[in-house]
């Protein structure tokens, strides 16, 4: 892997609304380092979640290009983008429940995440790393919000992805649960996994190795 895992070049995203086109992101260029915790910071509506979706290849930008490990993705078909997502990207969504499959138990959630990337999960080892030992047979609904979000990062780990992206991972958690998630993020970064987080949580921003501030859909000067 080179110096940067993800690069954005003059990326812009427009949305069609009944009132006309709205620009959510405008001419953003940035490089995400191949190690450490990168934070996209900014207030609500600044475009950080949109940018994260573009970075995670979930959404195509209206303009500009995205490079993953030096490979341009603009001309890739939907199938090829899915293949990249499958192999290289782990995305953790804002709501903990959205990152887990409710009708599967904890162990199967980890296994399913690994399977999707063509890997095999070492469930007990992962749960121990996450501070959730002995919960493999639990129902997801039996866990607290913080535990669920840590399990979500566990799923990302199980996928052994090239890069982990997370959208406001602490916004729906109480303070103690959020602490557990911050701990997990710090741990990931320590282990050299490149992590990109969109957040306006000051405590999380404080952990950042690299920080990009967004205002009104553009990088703040």
């Amino acid at each position, binding site marked *: 892997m080179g110096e940067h895992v993800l690069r954005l070049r003059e990326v812009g995203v427009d949305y069609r609304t009944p009132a006309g086109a709205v620009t959510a992101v405008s001419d953003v260029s940035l490089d995400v380092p191949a190690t450490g915790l990168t934070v996209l910071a900014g207030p609500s509506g600044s475009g950080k979640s949109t940018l994260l979706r573009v970075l995670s290849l979930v959404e195509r930008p209206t303009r500009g290009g995205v490079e993953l490990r030096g490979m341009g993705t603009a001309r890739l078909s939907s199938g090829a983008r899915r293949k990249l997502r499958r192999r290289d990207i782990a995305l953790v969504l804002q709501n903990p429940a959205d990152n887990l499959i409710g009708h599967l138990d904890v162990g199967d959630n980890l296994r*399913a995440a690994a399977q999707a990337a063509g890997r095999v999960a070492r469930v007990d080892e992962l749960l121990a790393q996450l501070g959730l030992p002995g919960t493999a047979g639990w129902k997801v609904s039996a866990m607290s919000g913080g535990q669920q979000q840590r399990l979500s990062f566990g799923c990302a780990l199980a996928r052994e992805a090239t890069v982990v992206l997370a959208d406001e991972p602490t916004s729906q958690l109480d303070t103690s649960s959020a602490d557990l998630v911050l701990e997990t993020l710090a741990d990931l970064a320590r282990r050299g996994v490149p992590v990109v987080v969109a957040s306006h949580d000051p405590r999380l921003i404080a952990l950042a190795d690299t920080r990009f501030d967004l205002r009104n859909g553009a990088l703040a000067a």
Partner: protein
Amino acid sequence: MQIPWRAAPRAALSSPLTLLVSVVTALLLSFVVAAAVLHSAASGSAAVDYQRERLCEEALHPSLEATGIPHEHVAGKIQAVREAVPHHEPLIGTYVREQRADFGGLPTEAKFGYRPGATDHLQVLEGGAKDGLWVPKSIADTIGLELGGRGMGGRLPPVTAIYADQIDPLPEWWCSERHFVIPNVLDRDELATGVVWMPSAESFAALPPEIAGVTDMSVRFPADVPRTVDEAAALLAEGTARVAPLTGDYNRVVSPLVLPVENARQTVANVRSAVLGLTLISLLIGLAGVATVTVQWAQRRQSELRLLWVRGAGPLALGGRGVLELGLPLVVGGALGFGTARLLLPVYAPSEVLPPGTTTTAAVAVVVVVVLSLVVTLATGASRTHRMFQVAGRGNRLRKVLTAVPWELATTGLAVWAWDRVQHSGLSTTTKVGALPRIDAAALAFPLLVVLTAALVTARLARWALAASHRAELWSTPAAQLAIRRLAAGAGPVTGVLLVGVLAVGTMAVGTAIAGSQETALEVKSGMYTGANSYAQIPSEVTELPAALRGNSTIVGFVKQYDRTALVVDPRTFRDGAFPFEIDPALLDEPLRVGNVPRREVRLPGLPPIAPTAWVPTFPKLGTAGWVVPVDRISDRDEVGSWYVWSSRPLAEVTAALSADGVKLSRNLDEKSRAVQGLPFLTIQWTFGFVTALGAVLAVVASIALLLAVEVRRRQNALSGAFSTRMGLLPAAMLRSHLLELGAVAGAAVLVGLAASAVSSGFTVPKLDPAPRLTPGPQVPDVLPLLVTTAVGSVLVVLVAAWIAVRAVRSAKIGELIRG
């Protein structure tokens, strides 16, 4: 297979409602398709059954008749038959022509015959030993013959039994021999005898030459009675091949199944083509239901599907996830639908008898439908996830196009085309005498196309009205305002339910009206054609009815010259025996002009000159042309063409009463149920009976859709309802608003459906007349019972749906709802 896909069937258990709806949707879909297959095939069996009842069951197998054979050749011919058909024992009847016979007393004309087993099928009055002659009571009484007597100077076996003369209607065993065993006494009075039965073939062969002149012979082949078209066709084919080597030696080959087999096949084709259209529409609605269930599944599983998509799963794989979750309920529903269609066969089909292989065909059709449902689930799941994730925010062009297409104009065009077919051909033309008309499926589709057009127009108008409903300001009536807003919020499901509801009510009403009109038309036309439930020709000298027929019968004279016909009626008893029809009894006391005959004076043989002033449009037997003369105007009964007993009682009772009273009967008798070929009427009746059944299925679909629409919006309604009640809306007003909302949908469906069916039935029923030469034409029956049933059903569904909605509001905890 990855874990989320592997666990999908078990995940289905997490939503019992989706599970239930999937099962019921597939059940109804499979029921419709399986029932269409079973119903069409059963209509063939019903057609065979109907025609079989009008034929002689004993001689359905092709048989042979020879007349005028020299008596000495009979034994040889019998031997030839046995050799030609070694594996099928024939039943051979042999009859000499009437000859003067001497039994020692008064001479008489007698006809001698032998048919194996004949003595087992006669009513013995005296004696009963089977080793001698069996003599009919008419001969025994005429010549004073007693048991033990021997005729022809002792050359005949002794008389060992006296039996009751056979009269119409004959039992099954005898029906094929009617022309041989029932003398036409009104034709040749001196031959008023039954057959003298010989004890054996040998004794018949040894009849003295004076009485053993010319002989008639019938060769029947008893066979199992066919119950299906295939069985009838097989019997006809095998029988024809069996008798083929013998036909050269016989005057007549009797093959009664030729036309019935053709007619039964035509019935199956008619019914199949007629129900195909609606079945396809129902199939499309059912598949749309499957798609709707899948869309709701995708909505409910949105977060899981998004997660899988983010992790790299494609739309097709996600559609497959839907198949794995909803597939089992669809398969179970399909199996249940097939089972239900088979179990309910006696309820909706005209016959329970199915040709071999029909159940397999229906099962294959159900499998195809289930596979189609799975494909629809896969495609809908894939396209939905594609739109939700892959091309999110780009809008749904296909949906916009489908909504914009004026489907109602297309169905209107089809309806106009179908009406043109109805106008020009009605049903269609008969290709040969006695054959069934080839029913024009396009003509039969007209009423359904009208209903479909009405349903589509209603749905479009409702959509426009709901889109414009934000202008409505009815806050002075909060219940109405809330109801309108809720309807507008659920415009899609509301118009869908309305569409299916109108189609259901309209289809049921059209089916009931047309099936009922045909049933009544067959009954009334048959009655008006025969004049009475049963009739039997009697001698002119009979002026009084036997005691058993008084109060239920009448004597009628019939005069015909060229195309002019008149009836001589007894005003006192006419209405007792004639087919019920509306007439002022006083009119019968004077000569009557019927229908379109000219007003001038008319002279007919046996009648005085008549110039009636009174007029009636129709009259039993005469239809719309003829004259009626009271019996007291007749001076000589013998001059009147023929005389009949008309009775409201079954023919067997009439002939038994007349025979017991010593009245001689001719072969000219019949009853209403056999007089008119009813198969064309029944074909339409069966077709629209099935249409009614499909309408009922659609009504169930509409009811479930209405309940489901309420259940799906339960949470949303509960939140807004709970807020409204806490802001001061009275619970009664809340209930009223739900009743208004749901009642408007159900009421509109019922009203439009009934109105569309009334219009289309009103135009169609008079045109769908399989026997236009018989009066009266079909008329729309009273649909009040259907109206009441539909209204009660709708009210019940609305009450249940409103209860679900109000209960959700009452039990809602606002805090939880907001947080959730």
